């Protein structure tokens, strides 16, 4: 099925943002050897390991900034250089949560607004996706009938849904939420269905001998058994919904991070856009990691029998 392709996509999204990880890990390294003396050797080894992991991305980041600076430092460059960005948009970087009036707020607040929309849209998608996926995975005929439809619909780009949803809801906010929902629901449905279909016959036999009713079967067997697949779907879904929200907000307006970019473009504040891109990248990375972490905790022990 399409699952491996989707998986690599998620991994690609993960691989695209290695630098924030290094930024969060770095402060740990000086404090490690400062701990108890008898742990010094062990801590020293760990510090070396941290350095091995942290240094390469730092070097890469420095090189990128250097090349960027060289390319954009000349007079007449169309894009801002890193030093220009720091000079003009320092407040956006250093103070994510300032609030100077209705349209002059920190990027942290804007991200919060966007995240709220994502939370609603993705939350609905997760519930609907798992339930529909469970039904489809259980029924051969539902799978045969619906799978082709889903395979076609899931390739529709997020923004293509926007006009239809604006026409249906006649309001920007529910439209944006709907776009998130419709973008992220497909991988959840498809992965859940595959996971349900792959429940080993042994577990079904156990359920049959114990005479579990369908609700018990759903909670005690289906969900835990399919959990690794479900979380793969959720992880892809959360990445897609973060992609969709930025695009949708650029068109629907309001307070979110997407609209901020559009607004900055209209007022020719290119440095602000670069800062917003960094915020989006970091938040998307963190979202992916949160879902992956929940998945790891929730599927503990299911991987091996």
């Amino acid at each position, binding site marked *: 099925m399409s699952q491996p392709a989707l998986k690599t996509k998620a991994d690609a999204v993960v691989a695209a943002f290695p630098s924030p990880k290094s930024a969060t890990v770095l402060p740990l390294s000086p404090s490690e050897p400062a701990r108890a003396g008898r742990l010094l050797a062990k801590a020293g080894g760990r510090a070396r390991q941290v350095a091995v992991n942290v240094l390469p991305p730092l070097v890469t980041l420095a090189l990128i900034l250097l090349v960027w600076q060289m390319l954009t430092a000349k007079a007449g460059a169309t894009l801002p250089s890193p030093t220009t960005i720091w000079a003009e948009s320092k407040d956006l970087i250093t103070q994510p949560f300032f609030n100077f009036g209705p349209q002059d707020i920190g990027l942290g607040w804007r991200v919060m607004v966007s995240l709220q929309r994502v939370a609603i849209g993705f939350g609905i998608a997760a519930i609907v996706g798992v339930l529909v996926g469970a039904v489809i995975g259980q029924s051969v005929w539902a799978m045969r009938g619906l799978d082709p439809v889903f395979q076609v619909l899931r390739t529709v780009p997020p923004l293509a849904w926007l006009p239809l949803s604006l026409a249906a809801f006649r309001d920007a906010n529910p439209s944006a939420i709907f776009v998130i929902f419709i973008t992220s629901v497909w991988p959840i449905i498809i992965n859940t269905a595959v996971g349900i279909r792959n429940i080993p016959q*042994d*577990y079904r036999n156990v359920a*049959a*001998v*114990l005479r579990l009713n369908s609700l018990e079967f759903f909670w005690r067997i289906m969900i835990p058994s399919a959990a690794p697949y479900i979380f793969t779907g959720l992880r892809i879904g959360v990445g897609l919904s973060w992609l969709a929200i930025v695009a949708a907000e650029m068109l629907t307006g309001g307070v979110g991070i997407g609209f901020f970019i559009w607004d900055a473009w209209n007022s020719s504040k290119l440095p602000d856009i670069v800062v917003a891109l960094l915020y989006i990248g970091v938040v998307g990375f963190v979202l992916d990691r949160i879902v992956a972490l929940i998945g790891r905790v929730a599927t503990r022990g299911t991987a091996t029998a």
Partner: protein
Amino acid sequence: MIARPYLKLDQIDKSFTRGGRTSEVLKGIELAIDKGEFVSIIGHSGCGKSTLLNIIAGLTPVTQGAVLLEDREVNAPGPDRAVVFQNHSLLPWLTVYENVRLAVDKVFGRTKSKVERHAWTLHNLDLVQMGHARDKRPSEISGGMKQRVGIARALAMEPKVLLLDEPFGALDALTRAHLQDSVMQIHATLGNTVIMITHDVDEAVLLSDRIVMMTNGPAACIGDVLSVPLERPRKRLEAASDPAYLKCREAVLRFLYERHRYVEAA
């Protein structure tokens, strides 16, 4: 009036139809098992002995005939015929305790209190000497231990008939011997009615009251039934040199050997 058997397999036929072609697996299986009896079913791979066990368990429907337990037809799976599966089939996301507790809660949810169910779960884990690993997950214990937990889960349902589907097939010889001793001990203590599928001649002779020998498929049937006249409790080492044991062993081997040759000639 004649005493009715506890479990009766009444003229069971089983055939699978696939793509318009029907293949007969079992033909005219007729067997009566008394309460407390330990019966082994032995036969070559593919003769349909696992299918027969699944039919008794209710996991596979019969084509013709019926399974009667205490004179009542059973045609759906249920905890009165608990199965110990060949590959243990423990749920990997539950601990050892939770795997057994799930069965206990399901079977005794209405009749036993929470405290009683907890105690009953622990009692059954102790019965298979697995009380020490109650908080471990199946992935953290050995194959033999998993199978012990599988047996505890089945016993905890207080089944009328305990069905063992090649329960020790995937284990090494030493672990297998340990588990066989455990099963013999449990059978002696609880007096369960047990049906065990096996392809191990020694295992069949050592554990069983009767050995049901199946012919090769297609359309396998019961070729012969052998009573094992060894006294219980049986000791592995003493039995190995007992003339009755050797005679039974030879009879089973001869049956399997001759039948096997018959198929090769055909």
